[in-house]
C-alpha cells in the first residue's frame, strides 16, 4: 500500500442481458485497484444522478463515502470532472476504459489527461512501486502479455478487463455509505441530442465473394475444398533435424523469448 492520493471515477453500468443498472464492470475493477493501493483513503467520484441506486454497490465494496457531481442524463461529464480534479490534489486518477451506457467512446480518460496535462497509461494492471515522483507500473497488453512502464506523477490510468477482478459488494456497507452531491454547471452534449441511440442491429455476415471470370473458375471455386494440405511434411528425418525445423518456425514467428 502506498500513500498516494487516488481518485477513482465511476459510472453506472448496464447488465449485458437485462440492461438493468448495475456497477460498471471496468469501473469496479478501477475501484478495486484503488482500494488495494490506498485502502480507505481512496476517493470515488461520479458525475450524474446522486439518487441512482446502483451507485450504492460501489459503496458496498468498502467505501465510506462517494462524491457525486450532480448532472442530468446526457450532459457532458468532462468539464465538471476536470474542474473538480484540478483542485482535488490527486496523484493518480483511475477510470474504466469504456462506459457501458451512452456513447461509450472511451474518450474520457484521454480528454481528461489532455485537459489536465497529465500523462495517460492505458490498460493499467498493477502499480509496482512509487518513488521520487514517478510510479513503476505494469501495463496489460493483448494475449496476456505485460509491459513495465515508468510514468511521472500525477497521471491518469485507465483499467480494462486485465486488471484484478472486483470484490463483491456487501449490502450493509452499501446502505451505510454516504453519497455527497456537489452542484456543478451543466454543459449539454450536442451529439446525443442529434443522434439518438438505437438498439444494436446485428451486423451482416461477411459473404464469400468469388470473383471469377470464367465458368470453369466459378465451378472450381464452388467445388474446391478448404485450402490446406500445403504444409511441409518431414518424413524419415532424425529427431534433431525435425526439431531444428520446428525451432526455425518458432523463431521466425517470434514466439520464443
Amino acid at each position, binding site marked *: 500500500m502506498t500513500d498516494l492520493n487516488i481518485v477513482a471515477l465511476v459510472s453506472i453500468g448496464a447488465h449485458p442481458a437485462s440492461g438493468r443498472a448495475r456497477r460498471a464492470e471496468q469501473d469496479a475493477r478501477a475501484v478495486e485497484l484503488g482500494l488495494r493501493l490506498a485502502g480507505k483513503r481512496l476517493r470515488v467520484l461520479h458525475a450524474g444522478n446522486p439518487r441512482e441506486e446502483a451507485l450504492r454497490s460501489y459503496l458496498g465494496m468498502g467505501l465510506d463515502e462517494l462524491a457525486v457531481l450532480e448532472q442530468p442524463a446526457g450532459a457532458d461529464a468532462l468539464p465538471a470532472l476536470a474542474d473538480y480534479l484540478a483542485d482535488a490534489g490527486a496523484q493518480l486518477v483511475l477510470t474504466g476504459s*469504456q462506459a457501458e451506457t451512452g*456513447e*461509450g467512446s*472511451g474518450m474520457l480518460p484521454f480528454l481528461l489527461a489532455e485537459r489536465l496535462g497529465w500523462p495517460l497509461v492505458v490498460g493499467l494492471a498493477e502499480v509496482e512501486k512509487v518513488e521520487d515522483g514517478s510510479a513503476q507500473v505494469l501495463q496489460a497488453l493483448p494475449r496476456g*502479455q505485460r509491459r513495465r512502464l515508468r510514468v511521472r506523477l500525477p497521471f491518469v490510468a485507465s483499467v480494462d478487463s486485465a486488471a484484478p477482478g472486483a470484490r463483491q459488494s456487501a449490502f450493509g456497507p452499501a446502505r451505510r455509505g454516504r453519497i455527497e452531491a456537489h452542484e456543478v454547471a451543466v454543459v449539454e452534449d450536442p451529439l446525443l441530442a442529434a443522434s439518438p441511440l438505437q438498439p444494436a442491429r446485428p451486423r451482416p455476415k461477411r459473404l464469400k465473394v468469388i470473383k471469377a471470370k470464367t465458368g470453369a473458375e466459378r465451378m472450381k471455386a464452388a467445388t474446391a475444398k478448404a485450402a*490446406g*494440405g500445403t504444409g511441409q511434411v518431414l518424413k524419415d528425418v532424425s*529427431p534433431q533435424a525435425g526439431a531444428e*525445423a520446428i525451432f526455425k518456425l518458432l523463431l521466425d514467428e517470434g514466439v*520464443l523469448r
Partner: protein
Amino acid sequence: MSEIIRRDPRAEWIARNRLHPLHAALQSQNQTVWIGPNGIVRKNPHAIAAGFIGPAGIKRIDRSGAQQGTGTRRSASVEVQLPLHVVEQPAYYVAVVPDMVGGRLSSHDKDLLGLARRLAGSEGAVLAVVFGEHKESAFDSAGVDRLLLLDGEQYQGYAPEQRVLALRAVDNQFAPRHWLLPDSRTGGGELGRRLAASLGERPATRVWQAEGERCVGRAGAGQQDIQRPLARLILAAAECAEPVSETRHEARPVELAWQVARNLPRIEDLGPVAVDPAQIPMAEAEFILSGGNGVKDWELFHRAASALGATEGASRVAVDDGHMPRSRQVGATGTWVTARVYLAVGISGAIQHLQGIGACDKVVAVNLDPGCDMIKRADLSVIGDSSAILQALIERVAAWRQEGRRDAA
C-alpha cells in the same frame, strides 16, 4: 498454370505431315508407328494402348496415330495483372494508420484500407502512415496510394506521445480529409484516441458501417448503435468494409517536409515483462504446446513447455486419461484457442479438436502417423517419435538461449 488443356492444331498437323521440316522435332520419344528398315510400317501396340490424356482430361486411345505430337501441353500463363490506379495530383488525402501486428497488414488493416479507398474515391489518395520496420510487400494491392514510413529509434517500443506528435505533423502537412485508425486493442484504438484528444476532434468510434455522409458505430456495451454524420477521425471496427481486391495502387513513398520535434517522454518503456505462460488464459495465449494420446512421457512434455515458454494444452483423450486438467482441453467441448502458433504433439486431429484450433495461424504437428487429419491441417509436420523430437527441441532451445546469453555478455 491453368488446368485447362489446350490443343495445338498446328503441332498436330506437323506431327501428321512426314514431309514437314519440323516433323522430327514433334515426334514423341516413344514412337508408336514408324517405317522399318525394309519399308514396312511397324507399330508398337503397347505404346498405343497406353494412350494419352485428351483435351477433356480423359485418357484416350487413338490407334490411327493421328493425335501424336500433342504430348507437350501448352497452357497459357495466367499472370493476372490488376489495373493500376494512379492518382497523380490528389485533391485530398485519406490518412490510414495501420496496426501492422508482426510487421504485416492484418485483416483489420486491410478492411480499413478498403474503407479508406472508398472514401477517397477517384480524386483522393489513400495515405498510409507506418511506424518502424515492416515486412509487408503488398501495400500496392491493399490499396495504398502514398506510403509514409516513419522510422527511427524514437518510435521504437511504446512511444505513443512521440507517435501522436508525428501524426500531428502529418496532419499539418497533408491536411487529410479523414483519419482512419483500427479500433483494436493492439495499439490503434489507443493511438487514435490520443490523436483525437490532441487534435480536438470528436472521433466516431467502433464504426462498423460508413455509407455516404453517415456512419454507424456501436455504443455503450455493444447493446446500442449510434448513427451520426461521418466524422473526420474514424476508429473503425473489424470488417467495416470490403478490402481492396480489384485494383493495384502505387504505394508511392512520400516524406515529411519537416523533422518531427522530439518530446521528453513522460512515459518511459522499461520493456516487456516475462509472464508465466501457465497464468495466461488459454483462449488468448499466443503459443500453445498441446499434447495428446501420442505423448508417452508427460514429465518430458511439461519440461518442453517450460523450455519453450509455451502455454500447455491437451486433447480430450489426454484429459480423459488424467494426464492434464480439464481446464486445459482444447476443442469443441473445451477451449477455442486463438494462438498464433499451435504445436500439436501426438494429436491425430479429431474434428472437434480441429474446430477448436480453427483460429490458429500456424499449426505444427509431431506425429507417428503420416496420414492423420492433423497433418493435413498443419503448416509443418514432423513424422517421428514425439519423445525423441521433444528432447531434441529442448536441447536446441537451450543451446539457443545459451548463445543469446553469450552474445549479450
